[in-house]
């Protein structure tokens, strides 16, 4: 009797373990994002995907962008990264070149080249004869402007050129009795960590005729701002800060300032629309193309999604990605989070008919050019170090009406850019 009881108990225990093994046989996919505001979107997509595929469990983690990039720097080379990773192409490039990221399977490669995405995207995701990753969303910059403040000053709309930027921001700035700025006429990115300061400066550098690095016919690069364009772009900041005092370091900046109505205008990406809906729904504002100068243009910064090397179920991971890229979720992304979806073959007009501020992200003037991060591994270092020099310069009142000083700052920064290119064997020798 005792032996029978023991036998039955053993079989029961075995069944429980086997059952657990079957349950634990579910596929688990992990996804890492560098944009915490994307969490609601991913959660919705994961929930819908799991309804269709109950055997797949999707775990999503989102980090602040800089921390996300630095986390990847350790986890990708050690194959301890998540199965699916969302990251900009310039940040991923070094891993692609080092062979840590597998190329796209044929169906994803075909999807990328099917006409759903721009040639710009295809070029940026191509390395050698393969493509790596597929775009999920993109950053394009426009001018956000406060309609109430502009109407108070009798201004017709956002500035369309640099003269209007200077004129309007002087009219829109406000001061207290001691002369302290209480509302900036324009909110510039003049401090902060990472490379953002250099990126935002680029939006003024490009219309002036320059760029951060320019590609030469031999496929190598050199600093593209050690010229009149670079000096004019720096001079604009210095003049706005000190000559006209329409912005300064003491006042709040960026989206927070715009939501608190502490600034009349600033340049940023489409996610601000979702941010304003959430935090400042009563602020009357609109968007407009970036002001022109000698030319006009806006950045196109792709954020792509990849399946990583240690992923045990790449077919399922790519299936999840294809699910995310369906038109209904691209539209949902645009409407709820605000990042501009990367697919060009979807009609987003229902979204900007509901939310008109999105219109200027998609209806770009014909003469507007797109520029973006060069797909080279050292671009982040170039931009970060340039950002640090620019922050120094923006604190230097001595650069007002000082063309030699401005030229010196620009030249020294360009020398550093060129030395980084040289170190990476990418510098175009004259």
């Amino acid at each position: 009797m005792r032996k029978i009881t023991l036998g039955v108990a053993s079989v029961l225990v075995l069944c429980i373990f086997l059952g657990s093994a079957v349950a634990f046989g579910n596929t688990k996919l992990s996804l890492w994002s560098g944009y915490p505001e994307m969490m609601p979107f991913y959660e919705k997509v994961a929930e819908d995907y799991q309804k269709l595929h109950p055997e797949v469990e999707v775990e999503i983690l989102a980090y602040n962008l800089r921390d996300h990039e630095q986390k990847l720097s350790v986890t990708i080379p050690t194959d301890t990264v998540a199965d699916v990773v969302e990251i900009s192409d310039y940040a991923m490039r070094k891993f692609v070149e080092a062979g840590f990221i597998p190329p796209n399977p044929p169906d994803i490669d075909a999807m990328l080249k099917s006409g759903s995405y721009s040639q710009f995207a295809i070029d940026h995701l191509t390395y050698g004869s393969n493509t790596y990753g597929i775009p999920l969303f993109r950053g394009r910059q426009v001018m956000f402007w406060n309609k109430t403040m502009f109407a108070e000053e009798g201004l017709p709309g956002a500035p369309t050129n640099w003269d209007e930027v200077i004129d309007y921001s002087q009219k829109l700035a406000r001061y207290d009795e001691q002369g302290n700025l209480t509302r900036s006429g324009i909110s510039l990115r003049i401090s902060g960590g990472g490379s953002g300061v250099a990126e935002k400066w680029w939006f003024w550098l490009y219309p002036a005729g320059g760029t951060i690095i320019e590609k030469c016919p031999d496929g190598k690069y050199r600093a593209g701002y050690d010229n009149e364009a670079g000096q004019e772009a720096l001079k604009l900041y210095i003049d706005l800060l000190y000559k006209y005092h329409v912005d300064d370091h003491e006042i709040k900046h960026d989206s927070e300032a715009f939501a608190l109505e502490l600034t009349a205008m600033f340049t940023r990406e489409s996610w601000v629309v979702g941010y304003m809906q959430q935090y400042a729904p009563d602020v009357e504002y609109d968007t407009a193309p970036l002001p022109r100068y000698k030319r006009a243009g806006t950045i196109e910064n792709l954020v792509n999604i990849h399946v990583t090397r240690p992923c045990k179920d790449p077919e399922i991971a790519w299936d999840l990605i294809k699910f995310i890229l369906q038109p209904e979720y691209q539209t949902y992304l645009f409407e709820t989070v605000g990042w501009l979806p990367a697919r060009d073959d979807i009609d987003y007009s229902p979204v900007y008919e509901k939310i008109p501020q999105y219109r200027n992200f998609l209806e770009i003037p014909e003469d507007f050019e797109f520029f973006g991060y060069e797909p080279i591994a050292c671009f982040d270092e170039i931009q970060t170090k340039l950002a640090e020099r620019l922050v120094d310069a923006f604190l230097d009142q001595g650069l007002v009406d000082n063309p030699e000083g401005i030229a010196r700052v620009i030249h020294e920064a360009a020398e550093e850019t060129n030395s980084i290119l040289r170190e990476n064997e990418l510098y175009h020798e004259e």
Partner: protein
Amino acid sequence: MNKKRRLNSFYLFCYIGLLPTILLYVIFRIIPIADTFRLSFYSWSILGVGNKFIGLGNYFKLFQDKLFITALVNTTLFAILVVFFSVVISLALAIMLNNKRMERFSPIYELVYFLPVVTPMVPVAVMWKWIYDPQYGLLNYFLSLLGISPRAWLVYPNLALYAIVIMSVWKIIGYYMMIFLVGLKNISKEYYEAALIDGAVGGQVFRYITLPLLRPIVLYVLVVATIQAFNVFTQVYVMTSDIQGAPGRLVRVFVYDIYENGFRYFKMGYASAEAVILLLIVLALTIFEFRVMGKED
């Protein structure tokens, strides 16, 4: 013979008992330090591409790197200020709390001063970031009551480093105060009675009785404070790396430079060379402090 055998087995027992700890120490401290030293002689990328031996190349490059020099200057200045003020203030607090008249209230004050020590650095740094906020910060509010216009404490180079020094001193004085208190309580009262009989008063008692007897404690605090100050990173990273902060050059410190070179630019060999220099500086300062403070009179 029996006694010798017992002693040998006793020592063997001790060594075996210590072995796991020593092993952990070797694996997690000694080997990584040795490997960092090795990597400092290589051009070494995290990605494992193009890694090669370059001898002292990283070290020569470091001393031509303006960012490294800035980090060295900033960190040294930060360490001098933090060590000086934290030691002086914590010693003064300990002496005050050791007074007989403070006996009843001493535990409350000890708790109040020790609370910042046990609070994690990240929330403390976020809290101080708001205190220093140019528009809504408490500091600018209180200064405005005195007619002083608002300052961007974490943006201007002549303010940002000192703002972080103030916050760092505030956070650590409780810890050193407790150590000094223990030291003060361990000084026999007979010395003070003898000094009284000899006519010594106030400052003389402190200079000729308290300070010499407290020397080992002061040495310990100085060494620990120096090591901690040179390793400053978290508060700089949290307080100054936002949209409205002072990045890079302005409050660039050693460990931040190492972190950026290693994990942003992937130059592990270069970052390792920096880490070795940091180790050598702290080691040199520690030896110096032992030489100066460790002498027996």
